[in-house]
């Protein structure tokens, strides 16, 4: 009977194309508005490393003033001071962890031939563990070693995009580039991937474009680099002077720190390690606040960073509300369409169709309308996401891209919405009295 009902649905839809178009369009607009906001909301709050949910943690030490907490309500600083980052690295060699700092310097080719391709390259200075922590895939080469970290080697891992730009996609391992006026040897090339939101950043920077290159944190320190104008940093006390050494010895916090643990036991061991470390530092007159060292999960990190910020959520709920309005319109249009069918329904009832048969017939018609609305809705979602890419240029394009999961969700949402919209008109039409047919003269 399904095929028969489907055939009847298509015939019925062809009979009143304007009414069907209005229903499909109302649904499509509602679905598109909802799916656009749901896509942005969902993709911007999705953990890019779900398999590391219980293994990967941000290290937060509460090195703020005694008077008040760093951020209300009770959030400890996201960044560490250089003293603490450096101490954790040297004292916790057995652990897998990495400091992460931001650098923006001009990157240029060492070749004197060809056109000059200098550009301001965004970089992260990290330790060798960073690549394993965040599952960074390699196209060529690999990460630098622990020894390279210790030796503050001038090594660099460049992105596929950078590699394409300077080396036309060829294997560039062993070749050199000039970054910030220093010559760096390329040791690896990362493969392009979707990694959003970037865990190892804060706030809107979690949606910034991928880095152009990575180099050792120790190298940044040995070169005396600090991105003062562009780095996020918080100082509970003023630096003693403006020298680089003074920055390193200050209580200014500018380095993010992430750690990965094999299991719960190792996590507990690390918690003990940082608690012991902070207790030792307290004895030296640092860390005035009560002991509050945190290993923050990815989920909590997202919450701290307002990844699912209230504005986006409000927008999403408004869009869902709009979908409801569209649904009410569809209910009205469907009622009008199905009421127009009451004489045919009465005839079918007289010829032996049960209420259930009529219900299924019109339910399938509703589903067909829903499917059309869904397909058009997803098309409109795609167009609106493309449009938003041009408006929200600060956000990474990938946040506004439909994947299969979202595409199917959109279709499902549309069908579900139509089912909800269609259920009342369908029940109503299936209750049409058959005897009215005989009364019609």
């Amino acid at each position, binding site marked *: *009977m399904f095929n*028969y009902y489907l055939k009847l649905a298509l*015939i*019925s839809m*062809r*009979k009143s194309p304007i009414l069907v178009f209005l229903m499909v369009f109302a649904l499509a607009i509602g679905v598109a508005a909802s799916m656009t906001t749901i896509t942005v909301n969902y993709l911007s709050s999705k953990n890019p490393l779900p398999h590391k949910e219980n293994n990967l943690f941000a290290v937060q030490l509460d090195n703020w003033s005694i008077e008040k907490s760093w951020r209300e309500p009770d959030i400890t600083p996201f960044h560490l001071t250089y003293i603490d980052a450096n101490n954790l690295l040297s004292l916790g060699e057995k652990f897998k962890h990495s400091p992460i700092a931001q650098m923006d310097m001009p990157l240029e080719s060492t070749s004197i031939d060809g056109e000059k391709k200098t550009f301001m390259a965004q970089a992260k200075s990290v330790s060798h563990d960073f690549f394993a922590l965040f599952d960074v895939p390699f196209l060529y080469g690999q990460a630098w070693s622990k020894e390279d970290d210790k030796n503050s080697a001038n090594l660099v891992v460049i992105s596929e995009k950078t590699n394409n730009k300077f080396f036309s996609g060829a294997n560039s391992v062993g070749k050199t580039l000039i970054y910030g006026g220093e010559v760096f040897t390329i040791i690896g090339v990362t493969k392009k991937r979707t990694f959003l939101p970037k865990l190892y950043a804060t706030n809107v920077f979690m949606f910034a474009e991928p880095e152009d290159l990575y180099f050792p944190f120790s190298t940044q320190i040995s070169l005396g680099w600090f991105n003062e104008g562009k780095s996020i940093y918080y100082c509970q006390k003023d630096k003693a002077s403006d020298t680089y050494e003074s920055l390193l010895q200050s209580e200014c916090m500018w380095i993010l720190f992430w750690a990965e643990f094999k299991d719960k036991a190792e996590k507990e061991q690390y918690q003990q390690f940082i608690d012991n470390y902070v207790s030792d530092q307290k004895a030296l007159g640092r860390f005035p606040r009560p002991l509050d060292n945190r290993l923050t999960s990815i989920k909590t990190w997202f919450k701290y960073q307002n990844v699912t910020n209230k504005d986006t959520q409000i927008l999403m709920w408004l869009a869902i509300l709009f979908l409801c309005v569209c649904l009410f319109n569809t209910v009205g249009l469907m009622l009008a369409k199905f009421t127009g069918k009451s*004489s*045919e329904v009465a*005839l*079918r*009832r*007289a*010829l*032996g*169709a*049960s*209420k*259930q*048969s009529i219900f299924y017939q019109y339910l399938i018609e509703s589903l067909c309308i829903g499917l059309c609305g869904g397909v058009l809705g997803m098309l409109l979602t795609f167009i609106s996401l493309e449009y938003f890419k041009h408006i929200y240029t600060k956000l990474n394009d990938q946040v506004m891209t439909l994947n299969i999961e979202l595409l199917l969700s959109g279709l499902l949402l549309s069908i579900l919405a139509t089912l909800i919209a269609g259920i009342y008109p369908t029940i109503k039409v299936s209750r049409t*009295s*058959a*005897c009215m*047919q*005989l*009364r*019609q*003269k």
Partner: protein
Amino acid sequence: MLKMSGISKHFIVGNVKTQALHSFELEIKQGDFVAVVGPSGSGKTTFLNMTGMLEQPSFGQYEIDGVQVANLNDKESSRIRNEKIGFVFQSFNLIPELNVYDNVDVPLRYRHFSSKERKARIENALEQVGLAGRHKHFPPQLSGGQQQRVAIARALAGSPSIILADEPTGNLDSKMADGVMALLHDINKAGTTIVMVTHNDEQAQQAGRIVHISDGYLSESTPLQQAIA
């Protein structure tokens, strides 16, 4: 085959009770041709609705082929209506978006026949009404008489034991009406019971039995020809 005992029907609208049909007894045997006559508003349509199980009687017992059908649920009454009763309406009531073949197919679809069985029944029914070559035509492409023949084919296709015809020639000119009446008589001769509501005395006189309905009361008379014989 069809037995109504103590059947009555009333409608209540607000506080007003309207007695559409007063208690009556009626038995129709297999192969009968019954004409139902009476003035407008006398209760003919209510009678036909109850006979076709489209309305439940307020009181009384109704049997079709020995099965009590007065208080069946929707699914069961739909099944019996589909299997045992065929309808022919004054205004044909064909579905304009479906072609002749698909219109005749409608009651068969609810019977869950195989497509082969349905095809055979549709072709046979259309041949019986003389429209074998009109499968692909749509109702608006046919004359009134042809449309009524399609409606009769639709009623016949399921091989019902009874055909209920509500003024089947009411919308036809006399020539077409004669053709339709001849067809109904042929079907009746083949053994199918026919209950036909009509305003036409001449047609009523051609029936085997005449049921008069007046102000909700049923009475029966013998057609003139039979009375003389």
